[in-house]
């Protein structure tokens, strides 16, 4: 039994201290091992080829302990390998946990469906996520009982893949950043890009034999292989995806079937493992929950919006009711006083006419009597308007040409317009549909608006136009000459409210009331910088009438 002398060992295990370069396994950063023999032995020597040769020489020496050393050495190396594998596994899991935490925090905090979908699909396809090539999201349409392609992400060609992955690598964005970037710049374009596939990715939810539906019913992910030769998968479905291996990940939140994610490696054809499937499966729970929550939030928002609109309509109707009540009260008052006023007025006017008839032409009193006749007649006209206002008007509607309506109204007041040196420019819209209105009443209202507009003014310009507005036709009357305050505008539409600018509000209130009976809104806008615009929106369909 001959044991080598100290100087004959190849490895440095027997030396307390070595210098850098003596051990090929010690690199910069490992300097503390130069002076720590025991640590150097455990961390470096056991794997060193020189040490293995030293150990072989020791075994050859026939020393009884050499076998023990070999056993211990081999077992130590085996355990070290196991520990390293476990450490690697822990590192991987730690990264996964961090990724899931990051993902979870985004998904939990978002109620925006697009954001949730962007995060979910980016996580599946990003290298920093699950690293799949493509992901398709199919959402359950409960009304139509189908699963339908909603969104997809990923490249469609190898060139595109190279370009996209290069961009992602050079961008140095974390998962959230990638998702935000995707949402901001690519969400709609990806939808368009996969439009042809998404439109055809339709699976009836009642097709229990379809493996996608089965995965959803059983709430189990599936690693689908040999997709082109399966009896439980329509070959067209496989052709649509263009791959024979893909993952099916059901999205189920509590008992609700939210949808399905299909992921594949269309470009790289990297083998999809069971481990891949289980990793992504963990992630599908928060995704399903987040999608459902975002969808519910979206629906709640829609309902809130509907409520807001209903509230606005209610307010509008309340205002209208108040206005109508005001008008009804005015109507009752006017009705009751009309009789008592009209009778004496007609007596005054009537007798004045009688006297006038028998008064010679050269009698100086003839002028005074004529004035009584004229004034009484004017008062009768006002009374007539008041009675018309308080009267219940029932419109008789039919289809009319809107341009003809305006032209007729303009023709009726032409004399008055000319006498006041006013100019009316009518811009008749082309190819307008016929409008369903009471021609007589609507024409009366337009005349009223125009006469109120020119009342007391000279030498002005009014623009009138007919334009199409969705399913309706608008008549716009723009008066460039007046400037009305908010109070004057309010007063303009309230019966018996005097405005300095446009006289009694009766005519305008009457017009508004007449139009409202036909469900025709009259909008009056008077901006502070001047000008007044009247907009009458005329229906084109019979169904729009009250």
């Amino acid at each position: 039994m001959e044991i080598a002398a100290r100087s004959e060992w190849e490895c440095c295990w027997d030396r307390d201290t070595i210098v850098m370069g003596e051990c090929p396994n010690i690199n910069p950063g490992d300097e503390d091992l130069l002076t720590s023999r025991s640590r150097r032995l455990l961390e470096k020597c056991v794997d060193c080829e020189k040490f293995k040769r030293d150990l072989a020489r020791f075994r050859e020496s026939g020393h009884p302990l050499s076998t023990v050393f070999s056993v211990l050495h081999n077992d130590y190396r085996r355990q070290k390998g196991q520990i390293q594998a476990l450490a690697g596994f822990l590192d991987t899991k730690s990264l996964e946990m961090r990724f899931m935490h990051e993902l979870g925090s985004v998904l939990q905090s978002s109620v925006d469906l697009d954001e949730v979908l962007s995060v979910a699909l980016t996580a599946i396809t990003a290298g920093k996520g699950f690293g799949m090539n493509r992901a398709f999201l199919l959402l359950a349409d409960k009304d139509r009982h189908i699963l339908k392609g909603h969104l997809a992400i990923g490249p469609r060609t190898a060139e595109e893949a190279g370009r996209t992955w290069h961009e992602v690598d050079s961008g140095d964005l974390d998962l959230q950043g990638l998702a935000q970037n995707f949402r901001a710049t690519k969400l709609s374009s990806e939808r368009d890009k996969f439009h042809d596939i998404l439109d055809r990715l339709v699976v009836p939810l009642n097709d229990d034999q379809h493996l996608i539906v089965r995965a959803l019913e059983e709430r189990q992910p599936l690693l689908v292989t040999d997709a082109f030769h399966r009896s439980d998968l329509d070959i067209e479905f496989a052709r649509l995806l263009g791959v024979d291996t893909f993952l099916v990940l059901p999205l189920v939140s509590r008992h609700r079937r939210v949808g399905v994610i299909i992921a594949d490696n269309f470009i790289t054809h990297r083998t999809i493992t069971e481990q891949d499937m289980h990793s992504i499966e963990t992630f599908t729970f928060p995704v399903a929950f987040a999608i459902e929550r975002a969808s519910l939030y979206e629906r709640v928002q829609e309902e809130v919006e509907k409520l807001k609109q209903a509230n606005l309509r209610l307010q509008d109707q309340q205002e209208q009711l108040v206005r109508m009540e005001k008008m009804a009260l005015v109507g009752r008052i006017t009705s009751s006083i009309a009789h008592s006023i009209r009778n004496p007025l007609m007596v005054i006017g009537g007798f004045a006419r009688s006297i006038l008839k028998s008064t010679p032409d050269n009698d100086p009193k003839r002028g005074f009597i004529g004035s009584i006749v004229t004034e009484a007649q004017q008062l009768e006209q006002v009374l007539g308007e008041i009675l018309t206002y308080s009267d219940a008007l029932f419109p008789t509607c039919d289809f009319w040409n809107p341009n003809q309506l305006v032209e007729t109204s303009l023709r009726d007041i032409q004399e008055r317009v000319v006498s006041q040196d006013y100019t009316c420019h009518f811009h008749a819209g082309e190819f307008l549909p016929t409008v369903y209105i009471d021609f007589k009443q609507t024409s009366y209202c337009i005349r009223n608006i125009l006469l109120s507009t020119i009342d007391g003014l000279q030498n002005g310009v009014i623009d009138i136009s007919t334009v199409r507005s969705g399913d309706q036709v608008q008549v716009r009357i723009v008066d460039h000459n007046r400037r009305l305050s908010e109070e004057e505008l309010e007063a303009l539409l309230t019966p018996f409210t005097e405005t300095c600018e446009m006289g009694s509000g009766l005519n305008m209130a009457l017009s508004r009331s007449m139009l409202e009976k036909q469900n025709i809104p009259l909008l009056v806008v008077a901006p502070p910088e001047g000008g007044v615009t009247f907009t009458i929106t005329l229906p084109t369909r019979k169904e729009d009438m009250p």
Partner: protein
Amino acid sequence: MSRLLVVDDEANIRLLYSEELHDEGYAVETAATIAEAVEKLEQQSFDLAVLDIKLKNESGIELLQKIVKERHDMPVILCSAFSCYKDDFSAWLADSYVVKSGDLTELKEEIKRVLTKKAQRRAAGL
């Protein structure tokens, strides 16, 4: 000379109608109430009646119905400040309707038109 009955609760209106229609060549009798009108209708014959719809606490429509029932050959012209007569189907029994005005031109024209029509119908034996 055609005989007219004017029914109105306002004395001045009765006077105005009397004067104006007399000038037009009609013989005019007036009544302030339904009772007075009915009494005159029973005692005299008239070619036409001009009725105010609103008579103090009464309705000219009532008198119209009575006339149509008992004197169906006598035409009636309703005369009122209200246009709401349209809502009362009974008012449709009248031969014509005019809105009250100090200018009696329309009333006079209607009287002439209704009387001519009556004469034509009588001539035709209807």
